[in-house]
């Protein structure tokens, strides 16, 4: 059977998904990147290989996420696309009539507006990280609540506390103040969800036409309190798909399938790449006052790719 692999390497998590010709998800893998994208991808590939039946053949690979270029070189991806497109493609595969996609991850959040299956507008948080998962993570620690229990706790709230959500630091001092005046933990947790939703809609979602059906994905979608807060604020149903946490990888796999239709042949290097010795190193170029930080990727001690320079002096490898 022919299958397609999608790899999404983000700041917090690395996700892999394998789909068949009919775009059905056969297997998925979710692991933490831990700041080491190469190791995470190799670990993911190893796990994935174990899960897949031997007769399956990978016919195409797509990479996405903030480490998409590095991953693309590592695994030999047929298509390297930004996570915005991958998430939109993943969501419209699941719900073809989708009009709005909310994606909230660990360090960034995006809104994608889709009309008739095509992305027409998008926005990402640029200046501030207050509207992301790390905001909730941080406050959960502060409250002594496990992030996994956060959602269920929020649903138990009777009167959510209003918390200023513009800035993580101000939210924290506001939250502590509310704690001191006797608000219950449930109410505060629900209040934090609402603060995040307000922040998200006012910053990332500013000026965007939010219409149902709305799909909510990314790591934060696991939080039931967030789904409820979105629904209350918008008055529409918010759909959290089954594979909400690996939608980017699914999208990348679908994009790989689309690419293979044209190119016919995959560049996939095989699962063996999980055993190859890949390294990265960086140096500061002193050729001009820009002092660009150039990154080199080495395969078996040989430089196979470079990036990070503004002028392109290093990017093109001498052959």
């Amino acid at each position, binding site marked *: 059977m022919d299958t397609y692999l999608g790899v999404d390497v983000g700041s917090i998590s690395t996700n892999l998904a394998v789909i068949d010709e009919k775009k059905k998800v056969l297997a998925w893998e979710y692991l933490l990147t831990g700041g080491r994208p190469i190791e995470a991808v190799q670990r993911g590939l190893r796990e994935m290989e174990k899960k897949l039946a031997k007769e399956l053949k990978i016919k195409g690979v797509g990479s996405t996420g903030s480490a998409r270029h590095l991953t693309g070189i590592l695994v030999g991806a047929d298509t390297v696309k930004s996570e915005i497109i991958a998430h939109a493609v993943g969501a419209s595969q699941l719900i073809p009539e989708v009009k709005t996609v909310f994606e909230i991850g660990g360090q960034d959040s995006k809104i994608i507006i889709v009309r008739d299956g095509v992305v027409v507008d*998008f926005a990402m948080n640029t200046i501030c990280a207050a509207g992301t998962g790390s905001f909730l993570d941080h406050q959960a620690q502060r409250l002594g609540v496990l992030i996994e229990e956060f959602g269920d706790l929020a649903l138990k709230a009777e009167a959510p506390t209003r918390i200023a959500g513009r800035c993580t630091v101000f939210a924290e001092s506001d939250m502590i103040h509310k704690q001191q005046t006797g608000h219950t933990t449930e109410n505060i947790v629900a209040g934090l969800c609402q603060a995040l939703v307000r922040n998200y809609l006012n910053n990332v979602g500013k000026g965007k036409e939010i219409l149902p059906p709305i799909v909510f994905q990314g790591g934060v979608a696991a939080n039931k309190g967030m789904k409820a807060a979105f629904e209350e604020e918008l008055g529409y149903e918010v759909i959290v798909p089954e594979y909400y946490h690996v939608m980017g990888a699914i999208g990348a796999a679908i994009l790989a399938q689309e690419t293979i239709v044209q190119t016919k042949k995959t560049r996939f290097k095989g699962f063996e790449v999980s055993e190859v010795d890949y390294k990265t190193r960086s140096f500061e170029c002193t050729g001009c*006052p*820009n002092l660009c930080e150039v990154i080199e990727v080495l395969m078996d001690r040989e430089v196979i790719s470079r990036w990070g320079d503004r*002028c392109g002096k290093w990017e093109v490898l001498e052959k």
Partner: protein
Amino acid sequence: MKVTFPHMGRMDIFIKGMVKALGMEIVVPPTNSKKALDLGVKYAPEFVCLPFKLMLGNLIEAFERGADTVIMVSDRGPCRLGLYGLPMQIILKNLGYKANWLILNTPHALHGLFQLGIDKDVVKYRDKLTFMDGLLAFHFGWKKMLAIEEIERFSLKIRPYEINKRDTTKILYQGMKAIENADNLYDLKKAKNGVIKDLRNIPQDRNRRPLKIAIAGEIFVVLDSFANLDIEKKLGELGCEVDRTIWFSTHILHHLGLDKFMRRSKRRAIQAARPYLKYPIGAECNATVGYAALYAKEGYDGFVHLMPFTCMPEFVAGGVLTRVSKDYGIPVFTVELEEHSSQTHLMTRLEAFVDLLHRKRAKKRVNS
């Protein structure tokens, strides 16, 4: 007397050309770089816009190289650029740099020129040079500027077709150097024609159908490739034919009222913005809005709007652009630039924007 000035795009070419012809001494600050930016960020107020920080960095670097007289552009109106000179004067004075200031704003300029006029060094030049020398010098600088703009414009047309990535950019940089080094009009013309020929000879795939994208917004970040993170080159390498709406020459011509018959003049853009903005907001705001409408009518696929973070006029334009985008069906992508802007973040969004435009075009083709 050693005159210096802050950078704005390739304005230095114009000034250097002019000064070269006059035989005066100037200190050109090193081109905008991380160092200039770091210096500017260190001494500028935190929420001031990116151009201020870069210009301040330029001046500090120039003073370290012995400059003692500053020529500073200025403007009236809501853009903060008009007021840059005064706070900069205070900041630099507090840092211990002593300098003469010539702020080019109507009443101040006269005052400044008067001050410079009594400076002994200037008198020395004034006795040697005639009015005609000045005119010829201006003409030479202007021609250099136009030559640079011509090759830049041409490179934008070639880049989306290049087969080997970065070919165009490499030749463009070489070409800029050659034009900079030209000593007279004959050399200048020869250098320019050489670059155009080299650009034309780049291996190209003419079967491509590049997306057409216009870039507009606040003048400094549109003109300065360091400030806008080389967005033109990035878009070009993603396969887009880019048209820049503002050039140094068109800006000057507009202010002199000489752009009446130009097809894509600022004047026309301001008129095109009339249905949305009935009175001038200031700076490039009205023009930005109008350009979106003008380029949409010409069949452009997308519109990129550049602004420094905290820029008031462009912030207004950004709001109005959502309406223009809807009315004309042209996707608009706004980039707010500041010292923390990251290349990777911009790249992610640019790739997504270009993808969006490709898919939109593919769909249009299916429907028609």
